């Protein structure tokens, strides 16, 4: 009895091979870096209060930035999803600007409006709010770099909710706000959470803008950079691994919460 084989499709092989190369490109450096430090190195790193403080600050400041993006970015996302107006394409491109601009430039831009001589800077100074080298400055740049991710995800989520549902809701007596909170939000919240996760991820990983505005208090990426430049690769790796582990745990939890019922992670 002869065996029959299905002739392999070259296109299928091309897809698998390309995918494997890309996945290797992503995971190999991370795997190498994560396995380089010994357990003793990791324990020693975690025992360092500066490391714990930097990781906590990264997560805390990024969380604040994501929360601010959620509160202030969601209305703009809703507006972009629901309204047609002149200049909308321009506005959508402007929202994406922080993705395109080199991040040190973002830091410089934030400082330039927050410094003395600028009306906003003077106003902040009047109220005793400092930007340079403060948590305020840190959160400001993290909001700036993370906002586009939240706005785009939330806008896509709102667009996926048919506007007719809101119209029916209003015809049944609900106000605009009522239709939003009773219909649109319950149907789009997963997209909003997804936007928050993206924003949080972007903020945790931010270095370029942060190093300009707030070298201190030191976030984990700045600390990794400092230790790398001062002491070399071996000394910076454990901090990087801890940052990856903590971030990964956080994202897995958030992703699980945002998944529809019955869907696998």
């Amino acid at each position, binding site marked *: 009895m002869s065996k029959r084989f299905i002739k392999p499709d070259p296109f299928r092989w091309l897809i698998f091979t390309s995918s494997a190369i890309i996945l290797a490109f992503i995971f190999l450096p991370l795997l190498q870096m994560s396995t380089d430090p010994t357990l003793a190195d990791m324990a020693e790193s975690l025992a360092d209060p500066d490391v714990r403080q930097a990781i906590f600050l990264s997560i805390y400041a990024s969380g604040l930035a994501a929360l601010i993006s959620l509160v202030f970015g969601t209305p703009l996302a809703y507006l972009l999803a629901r309204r*047609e107006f002149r200049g909308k394409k321009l506005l959508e491109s402007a929202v994406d600007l922080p993705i395109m601009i080199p991040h040190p430039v973002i830091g410089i831009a934030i400082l330039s409006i927050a410094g003395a001589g600028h009306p906003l800077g003077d106003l902040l100074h009047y109220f005793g709010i400092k930007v340079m080298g403060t948590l305020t400055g840190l959160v400001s740049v993290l909001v700036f770099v993370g906002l586009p991710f939240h706005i785009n995800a939330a806008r896509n989520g709102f667009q996926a909710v*048919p506007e*007719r*549902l809101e*119209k*029916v*809701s*209003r*015809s*049944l*007596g*609900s*106000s*605009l706000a*009522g239709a939003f909170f*009773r*219909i649109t939000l*319950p*149907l789009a919240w997963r997209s909003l959470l997804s936007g928050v996760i993206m924003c949080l991820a972007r903020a945790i990983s931010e270095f370029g803008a942060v190093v300009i505005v707030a070298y201190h208090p030191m976030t984990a990426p700045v600390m990794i950079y400092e230790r790398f430049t001062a002491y070399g690769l071996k000394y910076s790796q454990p901090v990087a691994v801890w940052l990856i582990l903590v971030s990964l745990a956080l994202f897995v939890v958030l992703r699980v919460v945002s998944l529809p019922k019955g869907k696998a992670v």
Partner: protein
Amino acid sequence: MIRASRLSIHLPGFAVQEVDLSVAQGEFFALIGPTGSGKTLILEALAGLIRPTKGRVLLEGRDVTSLPPEKRRIGIVYQDNALFPHLSVSKNITYGLRYTPNGEGQRVERLLETLGLAPLRDRDVTTLSGGEAQRVALARALAVEPRVLLLDEPLSALDPAFRHELQVLLKRLHQDTGLTCLMVSHDFGEVMSLAQRVAVLNQGRLEQTGGVEDIFQRPATPFVARFVGMKNVFAAEFRGRTAQVGELSLILDCEPPKLDGHVAMRPDKVRVELNGEAVRPGENRFGGRLRGILDLGPIWEARVDSGGLDFCCLISAEQAGRLIPLVGQRVSLGVRAGDIHII
């Protein structure tokens, strides 16, 4: 009653222009027109869901143009039912009750019974059939006791069996409740069965408003004539009781009050005859070349070129069998003077 007075809605590339529409208390009114003629826009403007550029909306005599939709109590049922997918059947139906002064109680129970929805009350709306979903949408709109019910092609997405069932239900509901209804539809059967009056919309303008009989039997414009199925619409000059249509002279059953206009004939009223058949009393008879025959399912369509005019005639399958060998040859067309509509 609800009235639109000189209602205009301007959108990029399209406009509803100066529409005057009035639906009496308890009336079932149908708004018909081709796709993209602005029917849904008018419904949404009446409900307050879009802001008209000009004109007014009057509800029971009161100007509600600037009133938000939630203050109008105008219900709307869309073609795709627009059920809230995260709420159960009963929560969809009772959604609007928190905003109504009378609360819920027996009304919802009665609606569930009337619409046969009682066994479905706890169901997830995403598991409903098309007919069930549309009944839920109807119940949801009726639960808040709207002053006017707007129906945007409520039956068009349904299977024929469900469509008939819901059509009967709509008719019964309207008869029982005396609710003022304005329905957008493409289905003439639905319109003839449900509506008392009809308006025809074309590219954002009202072409004709009138009783069902007026619209379907006495269209006022060539567009309405074509839209309601009078496929043979030709420009004509009138002299006495004769219409000159191209090279053809057609005898009419009355004298038109004008010198030129149009004549319109339903395709089922234009008979294709084999040459040599006797002329019937009061019938116009003229020759033409049979261009082709098309199977439309239960009936057939014959196209005949006569004096440069393209006549469309509906024929039976049996007649089609006899005519197929004659395609390309000359045949006779017959149309009674009384079946020629003057526009």
